[in-house]
């Protein structure tokens, strides 16, 4: 199940300069890390430090065989992928593959945030979009329409006071 839009990935060859520009716009860097499997450094910029807030992820290659190098050389910097948080990444990979879309990863890899696993899927020429499926050890968003962990906590706290 898709829990929400987690972030948009933006490819850059100049992480520092791109970060300063996002900072000037009014976003703040909340997290950073390296995705070793892809050979990239990532920085996450958000309006607030709420883990569930939408983020812009700056992605920059850190080695010659980084998977994004070809795309960066061919297309230059710019939007690179849309990331969706899901509650079962293996199941979502199978679902999208069965729908005719193309996974770039046979199995999920460690992402740039703590407790994050990711897998990329190509949606085809009509959109040219790469979708990054993201699953966190601790979900950052509640299921759509479902009770949030906070709401559940409030109910328990309320009962304890009765």
């Amino acid at each position, binding site marked *: 199940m898709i829990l929400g839009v987690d972030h948009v990935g933006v490819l850059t060859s100049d992480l520092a300069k791109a970060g300063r520009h996002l900072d000037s716009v009014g976003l703040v860097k909340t997290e950073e890390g390296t995705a070793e499997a892809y050979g990239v450094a990532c920085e996450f910029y958000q309006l607030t430090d709420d883990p569930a807030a939408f983020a812009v992820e700056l992605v920059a290659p850190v080695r010659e065989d980084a998977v994004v190098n*070809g795309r960066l050389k*061919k297309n230059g910097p710019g939007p690179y992928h849309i990331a969706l948080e899901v509650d079962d990444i293996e199941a979502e990979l199978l679902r999208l593959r069965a729908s*005719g879309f*193309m996974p*770039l990863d*046979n199995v999920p890899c460690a992402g740039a945030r703590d407790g994050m696993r990711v897998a990329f899927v*190509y949606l085809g*020429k009509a959109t*040219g979009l790469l979708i990054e499926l993201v699953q966190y050890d601790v979900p950052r968003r509640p299921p759509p329409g479902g009770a949030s962990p906070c709401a559940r906590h409030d109910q328990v706290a309320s009962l304890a006071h009765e």
Partner: protein
Amino acid sequence: MGEAVIGVLADVLDTEIAAVTPDTEFSSLEDWDSMAALEVLMQLESELQLQLNLRNYNELRTVGDLIGLAEAELAGSDS
């Protein structure tokens, strides 16, 4: 089968059908990259109503290799 595969390749790469033969190596095709490879696979699976093994697909070198893989998959799904 060969015509279908070559037709998809020519369409995705926006090149003449005559420029693609079974002996053509993917790496020699202009504009061939990982995204083009995924688009070819996606269109081929849709057109031929089959699902190819991604690992096998990624190891292919020539257009003829791809034709062979698709033929084998179709033969397997018929049996």
